[in-house]
């Protein structure tokens, strides 16, 4: 797993920025985001080769602790996931858990 560097973070920002546009160049990235986001054999997420929490920090100037706090807020405390295809797992119910 590669960890963040200034250069890599800049490349990542460019990649994600492109993915959010509607330009012809973006289409190939949007159409195949595996090129940007992938999981390794441990289920670790990397974004353009950068470990994901570090990449998020580089992209948004939020510390890993803040990333975790937010992720907990959404996933662990207030579960806001909701699968509208009719999923009936707890994770998919959209209920608020304390």
């Amino acid at each position, binding site marked *: 797993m590669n960890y963040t560097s200034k250069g890599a973070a800049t490349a990542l920002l460019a990649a*994600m920025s492109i*993915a*959010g546009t509607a330009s012809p160049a973006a289409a190939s*990235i*949007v*159409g*195949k*985001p*595996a090129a*940007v*986001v*992938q*999981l390794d*054999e*441990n*289920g*670790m*997420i990397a*974004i353009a080769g950068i*470990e*994901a*929490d570090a*990449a*998020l920090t580089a*992209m*948004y100037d*939020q510390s*890993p602790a*803040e*990333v*975790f*706090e*937010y*992720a*907990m*807020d*959404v*996933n*662990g*405390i207030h*579960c*806001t*996931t*909701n*699968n*509208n*295809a*009719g*999923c*009936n*797992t*707890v*994770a*998919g*119910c*959209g*209920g*608020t*858990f*304390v």
Partner: protein
Amino acid sequence: MTSLAAPVLDVSAASPNADALRRQREWNVRSTGLSNSTLELILLPTEQCNFRCTYCYEDFAIGRMPQGVVDGVMALIRRRAAGLKHLHLNYFGGEPLLNMRAVRQISALGKQLHDQGVLRLTSGMTTNGFLLDDAMMEELVGYHCTQLQVSLDGWGDAHDRSRPKRNGGPTFDRIWANILSAAQSSRDFSMLLRVHLMPGNEEGVLRLAERINASCSDDRFQVLLKKVGNWGGRDPNHPAVYDEASDHFSNFYDRVRNSLSRVSDVGADESGGNAAKAAEAEGTAPFICYAARGNSLVVRANGRLNKCTVALSSKGNDVGEIRADGTISIDADRMAPWMRGLATMDAEQLRCPATHVLSGGR
């Protein structure tokens, strides 16, 4: 808990705050869906069930999770533990309580890591409630498995018509006794009573609502009203389903909702629910289905990895496998479309990637 919700911002197109809000939204979505600090495993300890609900979409082709897969799940948790701050174990099925051996092994590991301060464990289970007696509740709560969901189709016969045992026998009385037992205990849990609405069960649901108000009135209980849909079930007795847009459904929904003292707005309708819509309208918390997140995997009883718990038989949902040593293999081409919303920030792709992925919209 730190609140990172964005302050109220002027989001008019000309405002510089519009860009700040966009960045906040992006960060919210991506930190939820991409963080390696959290891992959610939706585990199917068995894909067999002691019920035969007439609208069920599962085919029961796969049995119990063999020890090799259980070992693989535990090994994956051990491999990831040092870097994890939050582990969420979510048991689904089939009926997960039919394979408590697997639940016990995996949950005991999670609890051990929690007790050692390595990570925080939260856990939930979707169960039909038939085996959820007092002793089982005690054991599950001991494993931090405190987020429970039980489905009901109405009071008594209304429930038994569409949620019979595999041998056709009734199930309601025992489930209700288990719910009452949980309500009368002092245990710390949350139980979502998922009440299904379908043509023909109106009277039974209204009667059930009265009894829920009377017996499940504390804040550990919430009720989620869900319209039964047709998700591929092949039972010849599959009930008719409501047209969401019909006045009949709206009137029924409103009557039940107004009769309940504790009802969850989130997820109450097929478009996402009022509370979620409100959060979305604020611009800070768009819906993200677990299937759209990179840090959430469904582990089937046979060790195959899925993203969605509904489209279990769809090839596009089969994204990899877990090995006994805890490593996983992922088919990136199949995994990628599920996470597309994290790149595009498209609300529909985040809300329900299955509708996009499985329709071939890759």
